[in-house]
């Protein structure tokens, strides 16, 4: 992060644009100087003169000369990002916030519940967990998307299934011909995973409705409040706890999160709104 001025960017050029699904693309960026981040931390990505938006890198935190940002087309600025071609120059601020406490997962089973574009930060986490897999008992990814076409990072699943200790489960709301995995909301996958709950942590990242029902299901399964890690989606803007757009009760999501335990946030009013 630039310490001379919190609001100034470092530049990054677009090296490649990967189409992940009809609505989701990944920009492969080359920052002008090595860029280090911890998995789960986020950046503000600036389109010169138009605006900026927060994204958690989807690439490995071990790689510092490239950065991948996965973007769902949902509005004005994301539509502009989708139109970018290799060679475009963007601005980046960050990294900001508190990411996943990977060291706290050591010696445990990790179940990860993801939905839609929520798989972006999870992919980065999976890279980080792969790097320390000797210290983990088991990593189970449960991922839900609307349709098989909306399922992103398709090669990731086949690769993860070849890695010792890693397992994946997928579901879709609406199947298409050839789909032979689960059908239904993402939380149904939790019924299949058979975790050693006492010795486990859960990570949830996805749309608010999935965050809510995923968390409630995990609690029903016996997970304690401090075993559940949530990646909160808020309108982070300044990234440094000043602009107020991401305030969630006493927390500034940009500074105190975006990763929280359920224990930290459960008493906030309208948490899932």
């Amino acid at each position, binding site marked *: 992060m630039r310490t*001379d*001025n*919190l*609001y*100034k*960017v470092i*530049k990054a050029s677009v090296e490649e644009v990967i189409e992940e699904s009809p609505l989701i693309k990944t920009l492969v960026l080359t920052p002008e100087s090595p860029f280090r981040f911890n998995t789960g931390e986020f950046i503000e990505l*600036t*389109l*010169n*003169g*138009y*605006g*900026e*938006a927060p994204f958690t890198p989807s690439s490995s935190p071990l790689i510092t000369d490239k950065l991948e940002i996965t973007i*769902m087309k*949902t*509005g004005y*600025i*994301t539509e502009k990002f989708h139109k970018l071609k290799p060679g475009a120059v963007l*601005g980046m601020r960050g990294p900001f916030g508190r990411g996943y406490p990977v060291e706290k997962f050591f010696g445990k089973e990790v179940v990860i519940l993801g939905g839609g574009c929520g798989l972006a930060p999870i992919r980065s986490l999976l890279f980080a967990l792969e790097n320390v897999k000797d210290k983990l008992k088991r990593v189970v990814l449960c991922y839900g998307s609307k349709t098989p076409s909306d399922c992103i990072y398709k090669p990731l699943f086949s690769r993860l299934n070849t890695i010792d200790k890693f397992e994946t489960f997928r579901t879709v709301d609406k199947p298409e011909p050839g789909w032979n995995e689960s059908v239904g909301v993402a939380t149904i996958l939790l019924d299949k995973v058979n975790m050693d709950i006492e010795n486990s942590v859960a990570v949830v990242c996805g*749309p*608010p409705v999935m965050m809510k029902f995923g968390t409630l299901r995990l609690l029903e399964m016996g997970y304690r409040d401090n075993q559940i890690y949530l990646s909160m*989606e*808020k*309108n982070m*803007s*300044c990234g*440094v*706890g*000043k*602009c*107020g*757009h*991401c*305030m969630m*009760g*006493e*927390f500034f999501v940009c*500074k105190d999160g975006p990763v929280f335990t359920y224990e930290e946030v459960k008493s906030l*009013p*309208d948490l899932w*709104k």
Partner: protein
Amino acid sequence: MNDIYKISLEEWQRLVGSLSSPYDIFAPVRKEGGLDYSLINQETAGDIVYNVAKPASPVKIFFLPVKLNVTVPVNHLKKTIIIGAPACDIAGLKLLDKIYLDEKFFDGIYLERRNNTLIISSDCYTIQDHCHCTTYGINPYSADGCDINLSSDKEYIYLMPYTEKGDLFIKEYIPANLIFNTGENKIDTISGLRSQAVNSLNDRNKNLPGTEETGESMKHSSKETWKKYASKCVSCGACSAICPTCTCFLLIDKPDFEKVKQLDTCQYPAFERVAGGEDPLKELSIRFRNRYLCKYVWKPERFHTVACTGCGRCIEACIAKINKNELIMELTP
């Protein structure tokens, strides 16, 4: 007790006039629309109004301008003196400092403006209809948080420095032969004026609950009361703009990766809306409630200080005539 320096009003006015060249001096003067800060020059140094509550604008406007390019350095920022900031605004500034001068992410632009400015706070001997600082533990005179505190009577200005910057200012600019020893009887006069203001504030606001009680009531409040008051709100954001502790802003992107910080408020629709369309503050009553929960519950939890200084400006600025103190009394059994 800090040293008190006494200078005749006439000499003080002459001094302020002469300093208006090396400094930008802002002080309250009576204008058509009421009392507000004005840039002072030789001719207007005598128009400064002392020791009455309160300029229309909060002192935050000098440190958080409505719009500011935060990526282009400002060259030769002129040194500034603010005279007449009321104690409620000084209390607000302490919270701004906690937010903007956070150890890990201090805002250099805010810091530069703070360092560049000498603040001379002034006692309030008269109060306005909606002033309620004492209910929130703030006296109508500053004992810290400013560089110098100013009290006055008809003949003299009394200056009490609270910082090294304030001390240096007095030593540098006030000729020793103009400084008089303060007589105890004069201090008694000032103490009397202060006590009168405190008593008047306490009496006027005797039914208004304190900050902790207010915060607790808000935590357990019914949505119906909020809806009742919010039904009159038009989300104009005047309450936030005029509030000494509302500091939220928007970053606007300009060419060459420049960014302009513009004051914003949670009262505007879409303040918290995320790309997917979810908007926690979509409903007006939730948005309306958010500002009060922020002030009386969340900021105290976060910064150990309530984010309302009792200045009453939000009540005066509200075009829907929403009186937040009436709301608070209704929320508190």
